């Protein structure tokens, strides 16, 4: 019965995504290839003194990305630090420096790790002018970088990969903003509040009184999901009834998380005029997502003890209105994208489910990954697969008419190292320093056992991969964790972006060969299998030994 429900929920989301896959993907391809500037865009370019028709080299592009993000981070940091003097601050004090740094890093890095309790820390101005804005532009940054990499494949030896400022403007104005407006209206219809009324105190039926927080929830909720950000308006995130009021809206939010990352694969196929590779990548993403979903549902239904058996599964930490299925489909989507929104307590999952959640993140966020980041990460892995398949066939490794040479492979080899290095080094450093270790075990972890270890591992993996979800129960608001996780988030985001742009530049400076695929069967099932196998092979073994002392020790 539960499995039938799981299937129904899956089909609902799948059909919705399938329906929007082509139109949205093709639309995005048009947005990024159109030569025409909208009037408002021209105004922006003129005001910002941007030469919109000048394509940038990868270094210039990267420079723009970094400059833009650094400026965004500074603004966000200052907004938090100056909160007390801002309007609509709800009387909240300035945010502590370490927490402000962590939050700024995490929102600029599209991670939206939240070490804080939003309703008690951030006023409306910071939420709207700071966090919501970064939710938009950080997602747009990811999309821009992905498109720049795609342009690397289509360029004919010119070495230029587009203009970041144009990509950024268009991604926001033509894609994220219109989608957000539509989605916000749907959320409003579903009962998500949007006001500036602050807290409302009401008398409950039982005679007590209750404080109901208000605020511009719907607008921020929209971009939190669409931009695979995950930074909720409330601490409970999407488990909060004001963020995610009903079962159908829960499925709609799942759809919102997945829609842009999936559609960008179509955009890729469209831009390179070759849908075979895109289709293989799509199948790979779907397969990994389905495996994660099925194992999450399976472990939650199977592993619960007597109490869970009576209530048809382990329901602790899950919202009644979603149930196990609604929670798991959301979790699969949020760990597969860099979403990081949560509608249930991952900390209360059965240990093996939380391991699945960790492994799903560890895969590198390619199922389907964050807005843009999913596409570029998977493309890097595809480059490696092309190289190995080329070796296996004795053919030169060619991807879309570009040769995979030493430089490209070196970059790809570095990209796959970034996440494990950051996560494992971060964990090791935290445990190596005795006072920090004591603080983490005694304060941060909910329990000093395998469960606490799982929370700890989850936090670092989530930060390194820019996911942002966390196992509730892990208190991360300590100076050490704020700063270390903030640094990990920034490196995890921008090191990869720098490498991806370097790869884009390297491909862009190659002439495009007529031999598009070098006779490699990129559209064949064997290629998909090889891709999936490699995604798993690269990611999982590195974390397996650590996981044995966390979820595996707890769950077996």
């Amino acid at each position: 019965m539960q499995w039938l429900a799981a299937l129904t929920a899956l089909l609902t989301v799948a059909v919705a995504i399938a329906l929007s896959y082509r139109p949205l993907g093709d639309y995005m391809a048009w947005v990024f290839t159109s030569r025409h500037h909208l009037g408002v865009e021209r105004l922006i370019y003129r005001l910002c003194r941007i030469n919109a028709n000048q394509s940038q080299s990868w270094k210039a592009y990267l420079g723009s990305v970094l400059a833009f993000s650094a400026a965004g981070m500074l603004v966000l940091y200052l907004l938090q630090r100056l909160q007390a003097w801002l309007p609509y601050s709800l009387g909240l004090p300035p945010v502590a420096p370490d927490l402000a740094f962590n939050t700024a890093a995490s929102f600029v890095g599209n991670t939206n790790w939240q070490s804080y309790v939003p309703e008690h820390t951030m006023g409306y101005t910071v939420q709207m002018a700071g966090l919501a804005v970064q939710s938009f532009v950080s997602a747009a940054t990811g999309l821009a970088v992905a498109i720049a990499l795609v342009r690397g494949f289509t360029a004919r030896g010119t070495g230029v990969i587009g203009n970041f400022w144009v990509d950024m403007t268009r991604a926001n104005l033509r894609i994220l903003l219109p989608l957000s407006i539509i989605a916000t209206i749907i959320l409003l219809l579903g009962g998500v509040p949007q006001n500036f009324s602050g807290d409302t105190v009401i008398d409950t039926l039982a005679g007590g009184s209750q404080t109901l927080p208000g605020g511009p929830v719907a607008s921020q909720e929209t971009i939190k999901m669409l931009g695979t950000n995950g930074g909720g308006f409330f601490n409970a995130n999407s488990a909060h009834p004001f963020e995610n009021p009903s079962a159908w809206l829960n499925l709609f939010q799942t759809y919102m998380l997945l829609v842009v990352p999936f559609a960008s694969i179509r955009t890729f196929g469209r831009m390179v005029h070759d849908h075979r590779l895109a289709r293989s990548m799509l199948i790979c993403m779907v397969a990994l997502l389905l495996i994660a979903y099925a194992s999450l549902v399976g472990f939650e239904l199977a592993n619960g003890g007597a109490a869970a058996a009576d209530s048809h599964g382990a329901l602790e930490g899950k919202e009644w209105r979603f149930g196990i299925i609604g929670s798991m489909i959301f979790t699969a989507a949020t760990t597969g994208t860099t979403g990081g929104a949560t509608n249930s307590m991952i900390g209360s999952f059965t240990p093996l489910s939380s391991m699945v959640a960790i492994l799903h993140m560890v895969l590198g966020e390619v199922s389907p990954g964050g807005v843009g980041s999913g596409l570029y990460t998977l493309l890097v892995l595809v480059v490696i697969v092309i190289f190995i398949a080329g070796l296996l066939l004795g053919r030169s490794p060619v991807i879309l008419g570009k040769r995979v040479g030493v430089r490209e492979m070196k970059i790809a080899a570095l990209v796959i190292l970034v996440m494990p290095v950051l996560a494992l080094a971060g964990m090791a450093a935290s445990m190596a320093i005795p006072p920090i270790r004591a603080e983490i075990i005694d304060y941060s972890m909910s329990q000093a056992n395998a469960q606490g270890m799982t929370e700890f591992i989850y936090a670092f993996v989530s930060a390194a991969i820019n996911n942002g979800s966390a196992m509730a129960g892990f208190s991360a608001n300590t100076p050490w964790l704020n700063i270390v996780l903030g640094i990990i988030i920034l490196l995890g985001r921008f090191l990869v972006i720098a490498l991806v742009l370097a790869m884009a530049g390297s491909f862009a400076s190659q002439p495009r060969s007529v031999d598009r695929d070098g006779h490699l069967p990129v559209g064949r099932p064997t290629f998909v299998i090889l891709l999936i196998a490699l995604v798993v092979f690269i990611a999982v073994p590195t974390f397996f030994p650590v996981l044995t002392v966390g979820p595996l020790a707890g769950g077996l």
Partner: protein
Amino acid sequence: MTSNIPAKANAQLSTNPQSGLKQTTAATGTVTTAGPKPVSTPASSQPSTAVSDPTSPAATASASSQPSTTTAPPAAPAPRPPADNPWEREEGHVFPPLPKLLRAALAKCTPAALWDNPVLELTWWGAAITTLVAIAEPIFGVQARSGGTLLPAGFSATMAVFLWLVLYTATIAESLAEGRGRSQTEALRALRTSTRASRIRHYDPRRDQAARHVATLNVDALDLRPGHFVIVTAGQTLPADGDIVWGGGMVDESAQTGESAPVLRNTSRANRQVISGTRLLSDRMVVKVTKTPGHTATDRMIALAEGTHRQRAPKEMALLALLSSFSLSFVLVSLTLNLVVAPWDMPVSIPILAALVVTLIPTEIAALMSVTGIAAMYQLLRRGVLVDSGHALETAGDVSTVLFDKTGTITEGDRCATRFLPLSGVSEAELVAAALLASAGDQSYEGRSITALAAKRGFADCDDLSEGDKIFDFSAKTRLSGRDCPDGRRVRKGAESAILKWLDHDGADIAPAALAELQGETTRVANRGGTPLVVAEFPAAGPARLLGVIPMRDVVKDAVPFRMEQLHHLGIKTVMITGDNPLTAKAIASEADIDEYIGDADPQAKVDAIVAEQQAGHFVAMSGDGVNDAPALAQADVGVAMNSASPAVRQAANMVILDNDPTKIVDVIEIGRRQQATRGALITFNMANDIMRYFALFPALFAGEFPQLMRLNILHLHSVPSAILSTVIFSIVVMGILIPLALAGVPYGLTSPKRALCRNLLYYGLGGVLVAAAGIKLIDLLVMWIPGY
């Protein structure tokens, strides 16, 4: 006809329908003579001297005849080498003796020797650290525990031994491959006839500049060093590059530069440099050696085949980057693991961490990567191909277009007369008699083929060279040969344009009808791929006459159509590029089953054709043997020179085909691809192996503390120490299994990529998982009998 006539050839077909009376501008913009066209190279204008080279046993055998007719092949093709060529010997003592092998492998087991192979370097450090731990443990009386498990006594020492064995097996693989290569090249080196030199013991330029009264040493040229002085007398070969300090003389430099005419070398600044391998024809000189002999292109290639001067090729570098990345991630795991699990206070012992790294990093593929490279060179050497770099061999595997220089490559290169075609009013006997007269002094292959054809048709040869006869030898400049008889009769045979020019020059008045008929005949001959020779005479009395046409035809080599078929199977486009006219080119291309052809090509046209293919994204291989091919060979991604080519050409090429068979390029491409496929198979096998190794190692790490982890022990290995030891031993065993595979290369079929990928994944992917599962389990079944395991 499988050819798509390229636009370039088309253009020439339309502008030049006849076999050329006029000068035509070729599409490349260079003025070329249309029709049968001499490739005006210095080498070709010298009919009698074979372009010989000390390393070529075949060169002397080549009847390097230059044509008496119009088209001269740049260099003569050589017949197949005799069967006792060293590179074609049967396997016998190709494996070096075992003690020598083991010693050579041991010498490689130092961090310095392994420095350029980061994966093996890591293995060294893993083994070294484990050894230190094994030594320290008894001294400090530490009881070895790991992850909550009490390890058996001597576990660390056992680990150390086996980790060293892993490394040792890896280095043995490389030594084995190098040894094989060396045993082949030793013979090749011996074959290089070494030049003897008269080295002056004490040269005193002030007292005895001519070195007439000095003691000399008769030394091997290879022992000369810069600064030595040698005496060279007429008829001797220059033993080394150097400067003349006294004397001078005529030097035949054709072997090195292809320039046929002897050049004067003396002490003047401009002329004093002499090149090793050239021959002094006259006089005597004293030469100061300026360069250590023995660093020719061939020497370089031999060194490479031995594996001594290996440089990493790009794809090897790329693979190494990937392998290093995998390796680093496991180093990271082992470095951080104990820190991360610190709250449990059950650190994994250092030997086990080292074992974790050594068994999980791609040691096998890293060790065997150089083996595959050396093995591929060795296989090429056995087929008579020397390669100058791993890069060239790798690129060969990527080649998608092959350009052949026609003459001597596709065809035998020597034209034979096929028929006698008298013009109207001329009898066949008349024509034959005149042709015989004109060819009598022509000892070239083509000249003799006319005599042979005449004899076959029952005409007697007129070898009565009377005293007053004046013989005109063929030269590339005049493009005709003939004789003036004492009675005033003058006979010529040669290219149509040359004959007409000769007639015109000597004031002959040819009837337009005869001219038209001649043009009709020559065009017909050319259309069928032949080269028309025209015979004409000024009789002793009477007006000049055009007698007839002799079609000369170049014969496609027997093996060529089959080899082209193989190239098509490999998905490779074949292009023939030749100085011949497009019609000849077309006929030969269709006979040889070549996709495209470009006629009337001068050296620049060859380069242009290569550049055009490269810009379309193809990797281009070019085979050639003429001096004029050097720029094209250098431009091509893979330049393949024949051994008969001059050193300058061989220098420009990446490969040298020792027995001068250009179709060996098929073998080169196949071996290049197989080398890649072998590496792909190895890395797939290695990664698939790793999956089972995880399941053997990871549960064992903390099984002592969390016994429930043994539920992941899907192989049901006996115990924690046994699981770890079995996995390490398996690494050694699997290396042993893979060495023959790396040496021989994986079977490389001509199946479609789709099926090949499927099959390879099944064999090496699934196979890798199964072999590892069975292997580790079997070893475990043995190891479990050791007390304590």
